[in-house]
């Protein structure tokens, strides 16, 4: 009888675990797995473009396509404007986001040449709050391998990249602090920032 009781307790405990904890962990693991696969796929596409034989405008076109599909550019833009997002008018917000898209594509496209022969390997992923962090190693010829972490939002449903960390340095935070400093030194004028961004992209084409 005692043994049966014991068994029943075990069964209950097992059921409770099955009902709560386990699926949660499984869902998390699945989300991380999905994020890893998503990143490997995105990485493969990028590497193919970098090492491929497209012309410069074609490459830019291809990069734009990948960015729009895999990065939450609007969200990142909003993050980068920080507290000035609320100061900005709806029209300014719109123009800022548009300029930000251009800046991102231009910056990435202009660096493609440096990454010839690049290799990206997904190492592992982990869940952090609602997001997943995927760790990759980027190898370039005659450069030491670099650890790059990718912050992925909604990893289980609609994964999108929202930040990139190189050796612990956040790309979007750096960008936000750059913009904040520029705005503070230019009377918090969002139009001045947008113009400066446009000038940058115009220079590099």
């Amino acid at each position, binding site marked *: 009888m005692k043994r049966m009781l014991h068994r029943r307790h075990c069964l209950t405990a097992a059921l409770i675990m099955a009902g709560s904890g386990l699926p949660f962990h499984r869902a998390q693991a699945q989300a991380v797995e999905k994020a890893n696969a998503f990143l490997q796929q995105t990485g493969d596409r990028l590497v193919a473009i970098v090492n491929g034989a497209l012309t410069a405008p074609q490459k830019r076109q291809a990069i734009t396509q990948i960015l729009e599909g895999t990065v939450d550019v609007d969200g990142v833009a909003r993050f980068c404007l920080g507290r000035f997002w609320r100061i900005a008018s709806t029209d300014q917000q719109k123009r800022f986001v548009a300029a930000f898209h251009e800046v991102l594509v231009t910056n990435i496209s202009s660096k493609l040449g*440096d990454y010839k022969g690049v290799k990206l390997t997904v190492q592992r992923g982990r869940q952090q709050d609602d997001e997943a962090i995927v760790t990759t190693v980027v190898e370039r010829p*005659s450069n030491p391998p670099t650890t790059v972490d990718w912050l992925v939002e909604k990893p289980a449903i609609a994964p999108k990249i929202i930040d990139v960390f190189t*050796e*612990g340095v956040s790309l979007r*935070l*750096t960008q936000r*602090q*750059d913009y904040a400093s*520029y705005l503070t030194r230019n009377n918090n004028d969002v139009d001045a920032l947008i113009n400066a*961004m446009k000038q940058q992209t115009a220079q590099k084409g």
Partner: protein
Amino acid sequence: MHAVFRQRLPSRLIFLAVRALLALGLAGCATPPPADDPDAVADFVQTNDPLEPTNRVFYKINDGIDTVILKPAAQAYRYVLPDRVRTGVHNVLDNLGGPVRLTDDALQGKPRRAGDTAMRFLINTTAGVAGIFDVAKEVGYPGHDTDFALTLANWDVPEGPFLFLPILGPSSPRDAAGFGADMAINPFTWIGQGTTAHTVGSWTRTALGALDQRTGMLDVVDNVKKTALDPYATFRSLYRQNRTAKLATLRADNQATIPIWWPQGKNTGETGQSQNPTPR
């Protein structure tokens, strides 16, 4: 450009730098934003750069020196010497930092890191031919970066406001103090002091160290200058994030004191105990 000289610079230059900072520096302070804008105030506090106007002056001076001297020198260094030679030079300089790193590892209470550093110094100085080849890495003793400022940080000494120092680049009171402490700890600062060999040695080490570090950062610095709207603010952000990340890595590094090549089941107490009784 920045943090270029962090590790190896004769003490005389540091004194000059600090004196210049004191003479010029404390004059210009940043104006805090009006108190009725709490977001702006929060930003100001977080940026923690009350000496910004002065810091920007030194940034400009350093940038000028860098453009005229350091960057071209680094470019020439990269152009003239093949990869392998530069790696060798880098390894020798890195190896000379062994004793300082060992002291810092110990003061940080990281026995595994200290063990790695000690073994690296012994192996690379001998089998690695005075440090030219990083043999230790191949046999399971990977290298790591550390300094006394991180030791202070690990002891919860606060960072303090941002400083942009002449020649040294981005820093903070804690990092500057750590830099001085590392120089004082370094046996190569003291061994044979006053002799010609010491003078030549320390200047060579300084010059090569500067070239080595600047060469490693050629692409990064160029990229920031091309893409940032306010390079000073971007370098400040990068420097701070980099230091924070290093501290996080240091704090999270609590590996057991068994090297990689030793069967990991042994000595851990639990996993391999029954199958692998440790010989005593």
